[in-house]
């Protein structure tokens, strides 16, 4: 897909909670080696909705757009606080953009945030709305002791997309989605934790979709890996995105800036978008960025952006959020993550 009308990022925000648990602490309890150094843990009063709001408020403030000018709020998450009742309405109400707004939740495992971005970009590029918010937010759930318990993190990122050329920090060029029916990860109604098909989550799931979406975009757009200054992949751990980069012909220097899984774990729908926020915080004018998400079930979105002359004039709070780290042990982690039910 090529965006023919101008649409881009006028503001963005990222959110990572204050708490961390070290990989070695999880290993102490469950025995296996941890694939990340540490991961983010939500506070006891946080969930995907509150994190979505924090990122969205920052995006709105950075864009300098008034709440009533926002025409869409799409929240992508696989950990909404309610099974039935949208998060988007609460986020929209708290931001002050209700009631004249297209607001809804999207669910597609870790991919929903980038899909929200493509949909909002479509609304903006068509002229249906002037500005819209796309949010990816998750408080990732994992069965205690499961492979995923070592990496399941928490965080959010939000992008205020706009058609006002003068406001844009980065312009969206192309998007390419690659989707198949692949049962690599799922959770049935009423179950507390997801299940996954272990090794199956690698080659036929993550790598096939990420590589196909990235290649698809580059072929369609006539671009090659060396045309990009930065590439951000979905990051369930540190190893997968580095391997995807290698398979596609990207150098490690192009991946490193947007790769945060070793510090905050896998933030699911927020993962590739927090990486993009990190890159935008440091990018220089005229740089090209490729973002490739992955969501189980399965699908990937590849999106390419080019920064404008005003990128860097406004930055997110991400570095400050990453610097604030309160370590919890596994017992407190279990309490804050509501793995323990008291009542």
């Amino acid at each position, binding site marked *: 897909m090529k965006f023919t009308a101008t649409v881009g990022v006028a503001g963005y925000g990222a959110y990572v909670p204050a708490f961390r648990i070290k990989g070695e602490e999880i290993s102490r309890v469950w025995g296996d080696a941890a694939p990340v150094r540490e991961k983010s843990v939500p*506070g006891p*009063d946080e969930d995907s909705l509150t994190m979505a709001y924090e990122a969205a408020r920052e995006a709105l403030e950075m864009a300098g757009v008034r709440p009533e000018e926002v025409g869409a709020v799409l929240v992508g998450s696989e950990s909404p606080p309610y099974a039935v009742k949208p998060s988007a309405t609460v986020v929209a*109400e*708290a931001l002050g953009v209700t009631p004249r707004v297209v607001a809804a939740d999207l669910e597609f495992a870790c991919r929903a945030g980038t899909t929200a971005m493509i949909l909002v970009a479509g609304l903006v590029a068509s002229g249906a709305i002037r500005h819209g918010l796309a949010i990816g937010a998750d408080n990732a759930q994992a069965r205690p002791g499961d492979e995923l318990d070592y990496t399941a993190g928490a965080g959010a990122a939000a992008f205020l997309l706009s058609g006002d050329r003068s406001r844009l920090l980065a312009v969206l060029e192309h998007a390419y989605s690659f989707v198949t029916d692949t049962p690599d990860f799922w959770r049935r109604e009423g179950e507390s934790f997801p299940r996954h098909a272990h090794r199956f989550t690698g080659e036929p799931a993550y790598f096939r979709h990420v590589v196909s979406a990235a290649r698809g975009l580059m072929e369609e757009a006539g671009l090659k890996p060396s045309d990009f200054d930065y590439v951000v992949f979905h990051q369930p751990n540190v190893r997968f995105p580095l391997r995807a980069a290698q398979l596609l012909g990207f150098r490690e220097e192009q991946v490193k800036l947007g790769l945060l899984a070793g510090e905050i774990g896998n933030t699911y729908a927020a993962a590739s978008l927090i990486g993009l926020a990190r890159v935008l915080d440091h990018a220089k004018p005229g740089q090209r960025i490729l973002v490739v998400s992955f969501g189980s079930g399965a699908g990937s979105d590849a999106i390419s952006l080019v920064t404008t002359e005003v990128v860097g004039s406004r930055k997110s709070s991400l570095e400050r959020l990453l610097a604030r780290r309160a370590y919890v042990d596994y017992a407190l982690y279990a309490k804050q993550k509501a793995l323990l039910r*008291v*009542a």
Partner: protein
Amino acid sequence: MVWVESAPRAWREGTRRYRLIGGKCPSCGGLVYPHRQVCPYCGREGLEAVALPRRGRVVTYAVVRNPPRGFEGREPYVIAVVELEGGARVLAQLTDVRPEDVRVGMEVEAVFRRYREQSPSGVIEYGVKFRPAI
């Protein structure tokens, strides 16, 4: 007073708790929270609804060790009077901070958090709290 679950009450209080909307006095410029009709400083009526600054300082605080219903399991937590930039005072919970680390005068900023769950199957109430400024 017996506290009962009520989705309508959560709805009525929601917007007021979600956003820091205060009142600004057209004659003395005083800022109050929440928004009300009469200025507590000069008695003038017709305060204008305004979005208040999100930053402020802790004026005083108390540590809650015996929480009311719906807040169990969160104790000990801190309730503080926060004076926002411009002077409006807000009574709210502090978050992301241990009670022993709270100081009078510490700089805080507004965040959006869970207040309480009315019950495990009931409505979740959200609203503004304050964290140490970052």
